[in-house]
């Protein structure tokens, strides 16, 4: 019953004129305060909570339109660009893979060459063709044999250090016993202090061990072992292994020293056969019991004879 307002005897509050004056004065007051003193910013912020949803709604269509058009333009150009890049990538990836392999091989051959020049001994390159299937034998077959002048007892190494020794020669192939073969011995020196010793293969792992090392001997983990050249089989100064772990148990006379070979005994494909090493004079026969260093020579000689 809103519109029955001609009945003035109902109480309807102040007259329109009174309201007009009241609200007009209020508005003018607000105007004055806001224009002059800027006191009303917090009120404005509070009220904007009511208004901002409507404002957001009002700007939503144009915002959406801009975003949508931007999205589609970007999507199309991105798809094209992506396609082009993918084709390019496929073309390049093949070349890159080849390039990586060639670079790797090149680097390896380079280092072998450098070593050959530095060492001053004859070396010929060989490639591993077969690996021994027996778990307990650490042997590989290389593609150079008797026709290439390979002989039993020659030393095989890669660009870093000793890998093994030729133990059997076929017409076109040769068998290399790796230094990790069980009981294979290499006479070595500790590079740090010149301590002489022998490193043996462990056989079932790719580790090496030092035997007959007194508990008190000066050896530390991290020490580098190089060939001593004492028995005349290995040229001196070629890296062999690095000491990994030392267990000094006073109950035993010798320390347990575990080493890891430096050369990529189980990794490389390209190897180098050293030949033409200077021959040492024959060992005098009447020598009494062989010292420790003599042992490997006998072992190696026995091995060579056995094969």
């Amino acid at each position: 019953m809103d519109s029955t307002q001609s009945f003035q005897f109902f109480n309807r509050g102040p007259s329109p004129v009174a309201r007009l004056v009241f609200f007009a004065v209020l508005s003018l007051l607000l105007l004055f305060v806001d224009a002059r003193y800027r006191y009303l910013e917090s009120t404005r912020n509070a009220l904007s909570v009511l208004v901002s949803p409507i404002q957001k709604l009002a700007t939503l269509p144009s915002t959406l339109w801009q975003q949508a058009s931007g999205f589609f333009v970007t999507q199309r150009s991105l798809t094209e660009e992506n396609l082009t890049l993918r084709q390019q990538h496929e073309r390049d990836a093949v070349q890159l893979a080849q390039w990586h392999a060639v670079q790797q091989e090149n680097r390896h051959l380079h280092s072998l060459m450098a070593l050959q020049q530095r060492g001053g001994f004859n070396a010929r390159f060989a490639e591993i063709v077969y690996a021994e299937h027996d778990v307990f034998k650490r042997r590989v077959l290389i593609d150079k044999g008797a026709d290439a002048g390979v002989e039993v007892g020659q030393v095989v190494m890669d660009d870093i250090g000793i890998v093994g020794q030729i133990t059997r020669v076929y017409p076109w192939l040769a068998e290399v016993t790796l230094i990790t073969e069980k009981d294979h011995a290499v006479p070595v020196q500790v590079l740090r202090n010149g301590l002489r010793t022998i490193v043996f293969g462990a056989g079932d792992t790719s580790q090496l061990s030092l035997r007959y090392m007194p508990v008190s001997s000066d050896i530390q983990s991290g020490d580098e072992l190089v060939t001593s050249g004492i028995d005349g089989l290995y040229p001196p100064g070629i890296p062999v292994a690095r000491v990994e772990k030392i267990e000094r148990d006073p109950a035993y006379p010798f320390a347990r020293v575990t080493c890891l070979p430096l050369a990529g005994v189980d990794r490389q494909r390209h190897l180098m056969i050293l030949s033409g090493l200077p021959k040492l004079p024959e060992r005098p026969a009447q020598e009494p019991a062989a010292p420790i260093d003599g042992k490997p020579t006998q072992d190696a000689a026995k091995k060579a004879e056995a094969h």
Partner: protein
Amino acid sequence: MARFAHSPPEIQRPASNLFILLSMGGALFLNGLPWGGIWLLLRPDFVAMVILYWCMHKPLRVGIGVAWMVGILADVADASLFGQHALAYTLLAFGGVVLHHRLQMFNLRQQTFQVFGIFALTYAVYALVHWQVNGYVIWPFFLGCLTSTLLWAPLSAMLQSLRQLRVDHAARRQ
């Protein structure tokens, strides 16, 4: 206009508070659309139109006080000085409330001329305040007064028919 000749009198057309609120919100929404350039100058003041419509048709529900509050909200939305819209809408509502008997007797075409005066007053107040505070008047601003007047008839008819729809709906239910 023929429709309004046969339309039921105002008293039979109720208006829920929600509908009034929605119409105010819708007007604020339309005012807040991203108008720009010449369209901003030509933009009709939808809030003023809706306030005037309600002041004319439900003067006891929507009066000067409501107009003032909506004006404050419009000030916040427009980031104009506090009280600028409020003062203008207060005058607008006063005009609507005082003249509502007379306006309701006219048809929409005749109303348009009457309403133009009220809108002109509203725009003048707004421009006056702007001039007092900032020292200049943008005269094309008054173009909005014209478009508001021209849109008065369509908007008024639309709100009337929306309310009529609800009446018809309720009648069919009974």
